[in-house]
């Protein structure tokens, strides 16, 4: 069956701003399919972003959308969620937005385990500003601010999220599309802070400077380098060198923040009624 995206796309707002060969369009469509399959009413979902190429995604989606300041999507989303805990709140961010300028908000949202889904589109570079190295640019790669090869160590986003207290952590890629739909559904349905890293390719400011001759090369790299987490964990270390796991990487227990907060409110109000009555 052909999926009809029209229901979720804002009319007259396309074409998008992403460069030819950018993989964000793949993620965009996957997100719409996932939300449609969960049958979340459009009025019941908010999509919040910061700054960067990924942050433009909400503008194309016919939900409640909020395009905030660089790195700040999570605090705005926290305000929305605590004001309306009965609604779904999603954040779409990039590697620089989420883990550099927004890094503090990212780890604290994980610690609170508030019911927000944070989707990090990791393209390993600052794309919108023209190819500066980000906290996920591989060591040795060329970037406009690392013209002799990147010497900055990198973040492992899922490990960071898990360490900070997120109770659902996953990773997908723009190549493994059917799996990506399922991962987004898993992340959104999880009650608590979920972090889904999606490996993407930026041919314009990262790929072509780093021996990926075409956008296809970047997708092929994802195909060859990603291993399902079950296989990744089974294989001996020498076989997984240079590879990365995809799938649900971690799922834990933990009290969801808004539920805990409003349970306290209810308890206090009952206690007060008891006193007043």
């Amino acid at each position, binding site marked *: 069956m052909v999926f009809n995206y029209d229901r979720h796309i*804002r009319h007259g*707002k396309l074409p998008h701003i992403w460069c030819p060969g950018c993989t964000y369009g793949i993620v965009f469509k996957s997100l719409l399919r996932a939300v449609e399959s969960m049958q979340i009413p*459009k*009025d*019941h979902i*908010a999509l*919040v972003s910061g700054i960067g190429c990924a942050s433009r995604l*909400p*503008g194309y989606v*016919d*939900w*409640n*959308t*909020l*395009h*905030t*300041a660089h790195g*700040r999507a*999570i*605090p*705005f*989303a*926290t*305000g*929305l*969620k*605590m*004001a*309306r805990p009965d*609604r779904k709140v999603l954040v779409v961010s990039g590697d620089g937005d989420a883990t550099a300028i927004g890094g*503090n*908000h990212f780890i*604290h949202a994980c610690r609170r385990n508030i019911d927000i889904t944070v989707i990090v589109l990791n393209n390993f570079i600052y794309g919108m500003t023209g190819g500066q190295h980000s906290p996920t640019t591989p060591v040795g790669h060329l970037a406009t601010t690392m013209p002799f090869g990147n010497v900055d160590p990198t973040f492992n986003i899922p490990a960071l999220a898990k360490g900070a207290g997120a109770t659902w952590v996953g990773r997908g890629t723009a190549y493994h599309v059917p799996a990506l739909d399922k991962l987004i559904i898993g992340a959104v349905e999880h009650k608590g802070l979920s972090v889904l890293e999606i490996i993407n390719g930026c041919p314009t400011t990262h790929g072509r400077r780093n021996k990926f001759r075409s956008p296809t090369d970047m997708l092929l790299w994802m195909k060859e380098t990603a291993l399902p987490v079950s296989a990744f964990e089974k294989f001996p270390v020498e076989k997984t060198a240079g590879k990365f796991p995809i799938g649900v990487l971690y799922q834990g227990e933990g009290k969801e923040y808004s539920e805990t*907060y409003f349970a*306290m*409110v209810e308890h*206090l*109000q009952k206690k*007060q009624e008891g006193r007043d009555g």
Partner: protein
Amino acid sequence: MGTLKLLQGNEACAEGALYAGCTFFAGYPITPSTEVAEYLARRLPLIGGVILQMEDEIASVGAIIGASLAGKKAMTATSGPGFSLKQENIGFGMLCEVPIVIIDVMRGGPSTGVPTGPSQSDIMQCKWGTHGDHPVICLTPAYVQEIFSETVRAFNLAERYRTPVFVAFDEIVGHMRERIEIPDKGVLPVENRRRPTCSPSEYMPFDDTQGDVPPIADFFSGYRQHITGLNHAADGFPVNASPRIHTDELRLLRKVEGNRKDIIRYETVMLEDAEIVVFGYGVSGRSGKAAVELARAEGIKAGLFRPLTIWPFPEEEVEALASRVRGIIVPELSLGQIVLEVDRCAKGRCRVDGIFRVDGDPITPDQILEKIKEV
């Protein structure tokens, strides 16, 4: 008759917020404003409200903007260095026309400065702290009772004009305890933002065809909308290099500048026959009042102009004063900030003198009296 209480300025501020219908506070601990958060932490959960201690000052403003967009009346409170950090998202609130209230209990600076000392040196930061041109409303209460009522007014102005509003007072009145009366519900007006009456399909979040303050729809209310910190068109979507940016930013300014009479409030003391006027706000206005009384006792025709609204600046009032008095004296706990505005509006029509102090103590009535005599 309302309820009589003995409260600190910061506590009165929290009471004012509750009176105005604030149900959402996000903040970060910082001296000398922390009591605002502590007081609300004890009260908000009891009325079903939300109190969040965020990871930093930046996040606090982000959270209250998110809450306000979902329909809540929301506030944050901070001091000097925290106020600097908040500026980024305050600009977002101004461009996206989000009603929020920001309390700044001023302390000495720059940098960590004197955390426990009073100051009035954030007053230009209120006006110019965030980048770009933007509308600014800033209220400057001087008494505990006034902190209560001006906080209520700040919420009303934020809702009426769909914009962030500052309440800036110094550490002295923030920590001073005075008797206050909290009026019964309904005594002070409490306003709510205008929400759209059109159908969701017709709604445009920045449609100014019905006036300079477009109705604001709550997130999740069926009025799906896009809000962006990029300059935007009436429908909320970004525009680049368009004449719309210019006219829209003028509209944002007009919301405040065009309603000066509604927003500007001040107290005057014995101005009618005054030859020398003390222009002071906050704690310096209190010292000014005492100095004027001392001067009158000595037969000097002195008067007081004490603004409760510092932004928009009472330009016309100062200009009118300058054309009929000999001198205006501006005491302020800075090295000379608001005196520049007074001087600008006086346009050379009278003498303008400043009294400046940043050593952590207030300007005394005697200091002002001495200057009155000199003038």
